[in-house]
């Protein structure tokens, strides 16, 4: 199925904290997955620099990626808002500062399936 069939561009929110160094790699991964899946998307970047902004955006750490409002990693989405790097637990049990690529791909498939 063409992920763009009958649908407008997916809305993606990309939230990041400047003091955490993971956002360039995360942005590159996001754009790479969009190219790979040939998905039309509208990316809105949110730079989170204060605790008040973290609270207002329910920002659990950097990077946070939401597709059509849904966090790509529901496990960590509800963590206390904080100005820090976000921990992602990979399938093999390791903790990493970036989401696993397969998690991002899966999130895109869920988002597009939900719209069909």
């Amino acid at each position, binding site marked *: 199925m063409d992920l763009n069939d009958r649908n407008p561009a997916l809305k993606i929110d990309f939230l990041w904290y400047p003091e955490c160094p993971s956002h360039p790699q995360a942005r590159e991964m996001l754009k790479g997955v969009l190219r790979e899946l040939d998905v039309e998307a509208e990316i809105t970047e949110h730079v989170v620099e204060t605790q008040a902004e973290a609270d207002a955006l329910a920002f659990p750490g950097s990077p946070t990626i939401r597709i059509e409002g849904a966090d790509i990693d529901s496990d960590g989405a509800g963590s206390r808002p*904080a100005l820090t790097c*976000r921990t992602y637990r990979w399938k093999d049990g390791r903790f*990493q500062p970036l989401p696993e690529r397969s998690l991002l791909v899966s999130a895109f498939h869920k988002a597009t399936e939900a719209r069909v």
Partner: protein
Amino acid sequence: MAAISLRSIAPAFDLPGTDGATHSLDGLASSKALVVVFTCNHCPYAKAWEDRILDIGRDYKERDVSVVAINSNNAVEYPEDSFDAMKERATAKNYPIPYLYDESQAVARAYGAERTPEVFLFDADRNLRYHGLVDDDQDDSKVKNQYLRDAIEAVLDGKDPAETQTAAVGCTIKWK
């Protein structure tokens, strides 16, 4: 804040450990090399490198290299980094190295540490010989350069490490 420069003498510390003991620079004076790692519980970079740091502590213990981990984060804002949480983590992971709590953050400031994890390697005279990364990738499956291990080997051989400075990658230390 700049880190201490190469060949600087290690700043003193005297900090409580998760093992219930107090650990000081003077107390570690006899070992052939000393690794001080600023780290913490909550940061994913610290978590990603944690096992490799603990392995270095185990691997070099019998070669008389001391490794200590220090958490200087503001535990009020980051409760995962509290002393109690440190004790739980050290127990759960069976830390083979002292895990010290720098509540006042004075030790991190004295070293000029900025990230977690961030490594300082001192020789037997406690002169700084290497500063920065443990290795070149937080993803252990992609590591090509074992900066800290290579620097320890060089110091134990009485040589200059091939790499003396790398830019630490990790979370910023959470200041009060």
